């Protein structure tokens, strides 16, 4: 795939296109594929660098995280309470995600229709098209690793709902290293699928190009791109300017609001507002047998037993990969206790609970703001409803581990709560929950350019058009009006597939 990288450019490069797409992840990748197949001239600008399958071969966390994640894997919310895992390379987060795919839940689509006036129409053709292109298929439970099987066994023992997950892979060798970029060429992320399709059909793809702003220029839009050094992300002095009939922001739920704010485009004063994260809390269990959770498909099973808790915030259960740096980054304690914890790594299994934020009245989520240097920062307060859900999730995960046969269960508090049997579960009641009380993560960033069918709310309409800005669109996870209660990648792929038809009709 031909990619123009920052070190190949100097001075100002001026380009023209029918459509300029900003971002090469789940939204931009699928959109580019479809638009180029329809014969449109597309230029794509990606802030991250281009890495090939061969580059991933060391499978070394120390190399992969700084190279492939936002802010060298140090991105966090404003108060550092939530670590934000988000990809930053050609292919965006699809290059490093754990491949779990879900169609958008019907109850979420109904919620959007009822509360935001968002009518998306028939989504089935879009689900099917991306599933076919990206090889989305169920990963059999028989192939699940021991880390996933503790979740499976625990849920089964407790009579909880649990099922096999679907993944976008072809020829997966079950290495367990999806989060470091797939070195086996199996993950069907944008890097190996839609982007080569689009480039082969004539798209020009520029890496290392951070878009500063977009502005209207007569009948067209002008996109201002700044080439950044791969080494330290500083401007090299080179620029890319793209003039296009249509501009699509697909820079993700933190990046796209950032571009709009820098461009002083803020319909309904809603840009950056209502950002959702599926905030993740985790509980570890130590088992008698080896788990070796670094090996095997990272996510193979999941439980939606608690996804709908009525008036309370729901959560769903999955597991993470267990490479040592990732595990250590989640430990809140310090000193010798960390050593004691880490040397048990082969026998540790971890369960995750992802909070379904944004569905309840008053659930405002977070806000993307601009720092003095123009870079976006997410402020995400954790209110009482989420705190309650986090407490409930800790208890559910602890019960699940015990039911699966864990010898000991640990929370990720600075002084972990330790439990060895059901009678000790009430120890969790005395623990504190919420921001900075224990580790919290997010691998799912959603909202910030929310979709709304009403003129006086939201940032984009149901056709992804930025309100009051003819020719400007947003097609990525930022348009989701709420979180989803499932992993969001396939929803973004499918929305982008739908958006391509809508956008092409307007060209």
């Amino acid at each position, binding site marked *: 795939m031909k990619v123009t990288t920052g070190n190949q450019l100097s001075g100002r490069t001026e380009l023209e296109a029918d459509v300029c797409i900003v971002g090469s992840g789940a939204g931009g990748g699928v959109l580019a594929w479809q638009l180029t197949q329809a014969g449109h001239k597309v230029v794509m600008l990606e802030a991250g660098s281009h890495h090939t399958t061969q580059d991933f071969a060391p499978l070394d966390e120390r190399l992969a995280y700084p190279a492939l994640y936002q802010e060298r894997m140090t991105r966090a919310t404003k108060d550092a309470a939530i670590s934000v895992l988000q990809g930053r390379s050609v292919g965006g987060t699809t290059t490093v995600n754990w491949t779990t795919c879900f169609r958008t839940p019907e109850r979420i689509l109904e919620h959007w229709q009822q509360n935001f006036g968002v009518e998306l129409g028939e989504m089935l053709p879009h689900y099917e098209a991306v599933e076919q292109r990206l090889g989305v298929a169920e990963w059999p439970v028989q192939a699940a690793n021991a880390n996933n099987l503790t979740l499976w066994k625990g849920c089964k023992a407790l009579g909880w709902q649990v099922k096999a997950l679907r993944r976008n892979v072809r020829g997966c060798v079950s290495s367990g*290293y999806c989060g470091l970029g797939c070195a086996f060429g199996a993950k069907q992320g944008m890097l190996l699928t839609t982007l080569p399709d689009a480039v082969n059909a004539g798209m020009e793809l520029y890496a290392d190009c951070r878009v500063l702003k977009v502005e209207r220029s007569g009948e067209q839009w002008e996109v201002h791109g700044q080439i950044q050094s791969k080494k330290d992300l500083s401007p090299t002095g080179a620029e890319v300017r793209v003039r296009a009939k249509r501009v699509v922001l697909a820079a993700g739920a933190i990046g796209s609001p950032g571009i709009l704010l820098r461009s002083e485009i803020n319909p309904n004063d809603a840009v950056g507002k209502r950002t959702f994260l599926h905030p993740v809390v985790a509980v570890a269990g130590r088992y008698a047998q080896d788990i070796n959770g670094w090996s095997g498909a990272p996510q193979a099973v999941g439980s939606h037993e608690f996804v709908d808790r009525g008036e309370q915030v729901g959560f769903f259960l999955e597991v993470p990969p267990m490479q040592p*740096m990732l595990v250590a980054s989640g430990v809140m304690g*310090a000193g010798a206790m960390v050593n004691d914890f880490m040397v048990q790594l082969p026998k540790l299994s971890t369960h995750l609970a992802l909070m379904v934020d944004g569905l309840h009245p008053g659930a405002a989520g977070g806000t993307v703001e601009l720092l003095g240097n123009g870079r976006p920062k997410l402020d995400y307060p954790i209110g009482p409803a989420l705190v309650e859900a986090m407490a409930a999730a800790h208890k559910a995960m602890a019960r699940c581990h015990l039911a699966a046969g864990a010898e000991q269960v640990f929370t990720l508090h600075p002084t972990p709560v330790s439990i060895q049997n059901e009678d000790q579960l009430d120890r969790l009641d005395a623990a504190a929950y919420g921001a900075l009380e224990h580790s919290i993560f997010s691998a799912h960033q959603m909202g910030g350019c929310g979709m709304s069918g009403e003129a006086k709310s939201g940032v984009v309409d149901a056709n992804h058009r930025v309100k009051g800005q003819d020719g400007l669109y947003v097609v990525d996870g930022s348009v989701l009006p709420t979180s989803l209660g499932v992993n969001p990648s396939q929803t973004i792929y499918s929305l982008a597939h739908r958006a391509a038809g809508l956008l092409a009709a307007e060209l």
Partner: protein
Amino acid sequence: MALSRRSFLGLSAAGTLVLGATGLALFPGKKVPTDGWLLTFSESQYSTLVALVETVSPGGSGIPSGVDLGVAAELDTLFSTLPPENGAEIALALGLIENALVGALLDARPRPFSRLPLERRAEIWTTWSTSRIPLRRTVYKGLNALILATTWGHPEMTALAGYPGPPTVPSFGSDP
């Protein structure tokens, strides 16, 4: 206007900065000589970071410490690959940790963090994890995770954790 928790974070940072400048001037910390190779931090900030790395990852029982592994130098290098504002936030946090005047007021320790014995540093750092001052918990969360992740990324440490390392990757052709 009511003072929200989040605006309090900003105000406490500004206030502590003023106190910090005073405290650092009155009570200089321990210096780790660096021969000028630092890329992000000043020598005094780096010295605080070294003391903190030893506190968070002390080693023992055959496990190397974060200082043995050069974790502070790695973090200095890491932040040199990010926009300067990212490193400046860490530098501010290190100043807050080091400050003897703030330490005297809040922790009954009128000495810079880097000049305290390891046991005392560990006690103080633990109190930061559950401090009633949100800014302290923010500093704790951010720096603790960085140090632990960097420590446990080292092959010496991953081997001690029983991690066999990644699988061998067969050679592939070029990407499409």
